[in-house]
């Protein structure tokens, strides 16, 4: 009897969740599709851990910028922070030793604050501003590094295996994800950022210091990127690249949009970004395992994104993006 009663409660919850997160259906569809098409390659523990590794990369890069997308702006500086921070880390290693990894959160914080202040005071579109900063950081990184990647070996313990087949970076990313979701959903800061993205004038009338919270959004974005990079630095090979690659920039953004945080702001958030990152990781890894040409994989992922954005902007009937 009791179980029956509970079932009655659970079914509408599942339906409601699927209605508000149609991406879950796509995710299940991908898993089923690849499991049927290439079971021998897709349904392996090795592949499972590869997907998680990819998921960690997308998620930790995308969490910070998601906060900025919620207020209706864009922050592309994350790749720049990764590159410049990596070189600074290499430069500081002989002086500060193990502490030098803290250059990432500090650089992220400073960059975010800088972007926020310039954006609010000069009213420059955040896309242009952060893109310029990204290119500046990339150039600076390449110059400081003398044009070659500089590996740092001291942090290998961060990704040292703890549980077999489970990437350690994934374990590290869990508290960061929880912190981001919690902040956006359960605190005053998060609520105010959603308010600014939803209706800026209304936010001002509701007593929110719009400029201050905009600066805070960029600062938090930089900080989350910086904290994530403590894990990502080693996760991505223990040395920062000196060459700016389009993929590094695009896929985290794609995870945000795919997850269902609209670029106009006001809804969505980190909890959606992790779903987007997971779907993107499964799709990428699955297509890769089908032994398609890399160009074809890129083409198919591009089409997937276009479809996701069209659905996301036009809105499925009965779907509210939360």
């Amino acid at each position, binding site marked *: 009897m009791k179980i029956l009663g509970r079932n009655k409660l659970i079914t509408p919850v599942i339906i409601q969740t699927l209605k508000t997160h149609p991406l879950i259906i796509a995710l299940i569809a991908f898993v089923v599709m690849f499991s049927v098409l290439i079971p021998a390659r897709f349904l392996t523990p090795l592949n499972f851990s590869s997907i998680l590794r990819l998921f960690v990369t997308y998620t930790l890069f995308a969490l910070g910028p998601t906060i900025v997308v919620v207020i209706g702006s864009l922050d592309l500086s994350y790749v720049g922070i990764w590159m410049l921070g990596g070189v600074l880390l290499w430069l500081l290693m002989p002086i500060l030793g193990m502490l030098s990894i803290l250059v990432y959160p500090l650089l992220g914080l400073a960059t975010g604050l800088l972007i926020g202040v310039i954006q609010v005071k000069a009213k420059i579109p955040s896309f242009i501003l952060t893109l310029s900063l990204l290119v500046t950081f990339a150039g600076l990184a390449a110059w400081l590094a003398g044009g070659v990647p500089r590996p740092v070996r001291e942090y290998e313990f961060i990704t040292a295996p703890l549980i077999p087949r489970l990437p350690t970076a994934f374990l590290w990313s869990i508290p960061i994800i929880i912190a981001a979701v919690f902040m956006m959903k*359960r605190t*005053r800061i998060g609520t105010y950022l*959603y308010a600014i993205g939803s*209706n800026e*004038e209304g936010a001002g*009338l*509701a*007593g*929110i210091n719009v400029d201050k919270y905009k600066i805070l959004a960029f600062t938090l974005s930089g900080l989350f990127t910086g904290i994530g990079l403590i894990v990502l630095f080693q996760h991505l090979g223990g040395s920062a690249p000196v060459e700016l690659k389009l993929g590094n920039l695009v896929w985290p953004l794609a995870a945000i949009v795919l997850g269902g945080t609209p670029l106009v702001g006001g809804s969505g958030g980190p909890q959606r970004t992790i779903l987007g990152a997971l779907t993107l990781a499964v799709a990428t890894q699955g297509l890769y395992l089908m032994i398609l040409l890399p160009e074809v994989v890129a083409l198919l992922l591009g089409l997937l994104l276009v479809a996701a954005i069209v659905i996301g902007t036009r809105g499925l009937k009965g779907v509210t993006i939360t």
Partner: protein
Amino acid sequence: MVTPMDASLLEVKGVSKTFDGVVRALDDVSIAVRQNEIVGVVGENGAGKSTLMKILVGVYSPDKGELYYRGGKVPFPKNPKEAAERGISIVYQEKGVIPSLEVYQFLLLGHEDKYVKFSRLQIDKMKKHAREILEELHVKCDVENFMYELPLSTQKMVEIARAILSVRLEHGDEDITSIIILDEPTAPLTIEGRRELFSDILDMKKNASFIFVSHIIPEVMEFTDRVHVLRDGKLVANYDLSKEKITEEDLFRAIVGRESSEYIYKPEDKRVVSEEVVLTVKNLTKNGCYYDISFDLHKGECIGIFGPAGSGKSEIIKTIAGLISFEGGNLIIRGQKVKADELPHFRLGRGIGYFSGEIGKELFLNWPITKNISIVNMEKILRKPIPVISFNTERKMAERIVKRLRIRAPSVNTDCYSLSGGSKQKVSVGKWLERNPDILLLEDPTIGIDVGAREDIYETALEMKKSGISMVLVSDDPKEYSMLCDKIMFIKDGRIQKVLSPEEFGEVMAA
């Protein structure tokens, strides 16, 4: 073809329009426009003015009705191009101008094909033609200016010229009399801008006929030849201003359609206002909007700023809210002088809440009711000592408001965009019930909502007043002033004309 002066150029007969089979927007309405005259179409918001105009320019098609052009029956236009063929064009209230174009480019936009020679545009010919048209219509500006360089009233004139031109070109006839619909053309203009625009339009009268859509009574009285009054989708009155003697009050009563007894103040509501002053406005001035405004607002008092639309009342209340800045004078809130360009969130910190009936102005439409209410009451829903939002407290707070204001919604988690206009307004006003600001500014608090919801909002406002909240009211509905206010300032052209008690206000309105 010469049309005699008295015959109608355009006539609409018995037009009805229903939306979704339920809402009756127009019911058997007939209006006429004669050669070279300005016809006013007036009514409150929701009276059906816009629907009628949209039918004339082919945006909507009517359910019933006939259209006569120069005495002959013609079908209703299906799109703006067909409307232009029947001589009708419209100048919308806003967003009609493309600021980055030069005047001649904007004027001839969409007609470039007439100036192409060997697949290139003949710029000189375009400029020459534009100059001729503007000269003919008495629009004083250089065709090489950018649109954004012109004053707002001149921009409006260029838009009107463009409307006349499009009718001519569509007709292929230089001498055709255009019928230009002006949809509340003065809304974005200052007092001075309005005067200029109207003297220019009067100059144009010999080139065109105008349908002037407005709810600003003095303007209609001054500039139109005849007036059609719409109320609740019906034509309730026609006045020929050149023949009949009509006062502003007559026109007003026809528009609102209420018995004057409603404006008589009910003495049993009278109460003593506290001596404590919460807000002092001293010689407040913003050029082009309002001048030398002074008053004291006491604790638990409601002051109404009454006047025609465009009199500056809306700008004054927005200035107090911090939405626009002032240029001269002082604003003293609870004994503290405030800066002219202080933003709204500082004003709320000083205890001033602002409520507007304009949909979506302060509401977060993609948010559920709960969040819309808790946004100004964060202190109440944060747990202690760690400031984490308690969803439970948030929900209970929203449920209290929903119950008290009788908001009709499936649940407190319903997103606000799916609510009815009245419910949206109640959510907006409800959040202040929990916040209890010192001063609440009400701007058009019941605009566009049904009677039942209105009564609920009035009741709430009166309760808040009783609890010691001071209020400033700006509205288009005189009834609201006599219901809510302790003092009414009558304002015209940006200046306070007189200060009335509710009794006097009721007498003036009844007279």
